């Protein structure tokens, strides 16, 4: 079929000028088959972010969870333990306020707050913009704290090297099966606030098992940023990943 007018001439005629009668005033319907990826622009930007961070030797870690799971507390605890080994920087994502950024600034760390307004997730373009506001030459480990939401952030690659999902013991042990999409890009899974386990009915093995069903190679941790139990293996994981990146 002629691609230009759909007149039914054979395939070979496409590349040749050919004569036929069409009424220039007439119109017709045609189907344009496209299959254009709606996430392509985000994925391209994410690849660019990753390469840019790599050039600076920065390990970037995207933290995703519901609101109140302890993403900021985990960043504070990691910083307190690793400050003599790695220089930490933070990008904060929230719908409103810069309260999280204030907490990070109080630690003396470089931080940039993204206020998304009505958007329920960070995307690669927002992270790219934030990178312009951070002193990349003096950061080794960059946390990107996503908007508190267990659904939407899962679809957007930000260009981080590691993507982690956090679930606190107070949220219930049934959440992994209910929110599987958040694990799409995830490399690790942290159960947080483990110091509260004696007070809630939460079977820690269940979400870890279900998370590994979703992603067989997922690294899992159970920790408390407050009591510091279980923090050691998470810190070692971050150090090993940073060493592998710059090796």
């Amino acid at each position: 079929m002629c691609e230009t007018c759909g007149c039914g001439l054979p395939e070979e005629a496409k590349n040749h000028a050919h004569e036929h009668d069409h009424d220039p005033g007439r119109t017709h319907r045609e189907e344009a088959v496209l299959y254009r990826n709606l996430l392509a622009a985000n994925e391209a930007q994410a690849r660019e972010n990753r390469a840019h961070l790599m050039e600076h030797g920065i390990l970037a870690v995207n933290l995703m969870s519901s609101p109140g799971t302890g993403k900021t507390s985990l960043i504070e605890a990691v910083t307190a333990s690793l400050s003599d080994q790695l220089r930490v920087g933070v990008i904060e994502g929230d719908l409103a306020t810069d309260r999280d950024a204030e907490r990070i600034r109080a630690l003396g760390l470089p931080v940039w707050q993204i206020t998304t307004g009505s958007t329920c997730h960070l995307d690669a373009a927002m992270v790219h913009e934030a990178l312009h506001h951070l002193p990349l030459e003096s950061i080794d480990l960059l946390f990107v704290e996503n908007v508190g939401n267990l659904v939407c952030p899962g679809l957007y690659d930000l260009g981080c090297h590691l993507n982690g999902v956090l679930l606190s013991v107070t949220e219930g042990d049934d959440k992994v099966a209910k929110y599987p999409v958040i694990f799409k890009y995830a490399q690790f899974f942290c159960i947080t606030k483990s110091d509260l386990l004696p007070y809630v009915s939460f079977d820690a093995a269940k979400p870890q098992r279900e998370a590994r069903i979703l992603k067989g190679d997922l690294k899992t941790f159970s920790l408390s940023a407050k009591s510091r139990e279980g923090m050691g293996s998470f810190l070692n994981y971050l150090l090993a990943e940073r060493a592998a990146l710059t090796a």
Partner: protein
Amino acid sequence: MHEWSLACELVRQAETEARRRNALRVHAVKASVGVLTGVVPELLQRAYEMARQGTCLEEAPLEIEVEAIRARCPRCGREVTLHSPALVCPDCSALGLEVLGGDGIFLASLELEVAETAGGNHV
């Protein structure tokens, strides 16, 4: 509500394509949504109806086709089709399936009204 961001991108790409093809009218838009994206078709439909306001898609209904997950099992090597996002082999229960499809969201096609080319030669 990541459906809103996706609907805006869908409208943006459909408009660009309709303009590039000199379409006189857009009759219909078709999107393909993979099960592993977690996108809710009903929410995407509603978001599309808001996002298309003031564009050349105002008269164009959206049809959404849901694409099942295609994956290969690392243990038994079989290619399987899954209709929920749990990546477990239905035959041998192995984990860590390699995803081959059903994890994307696409502007699949547009049905356009176009002018017939003026008579005579064209390439």
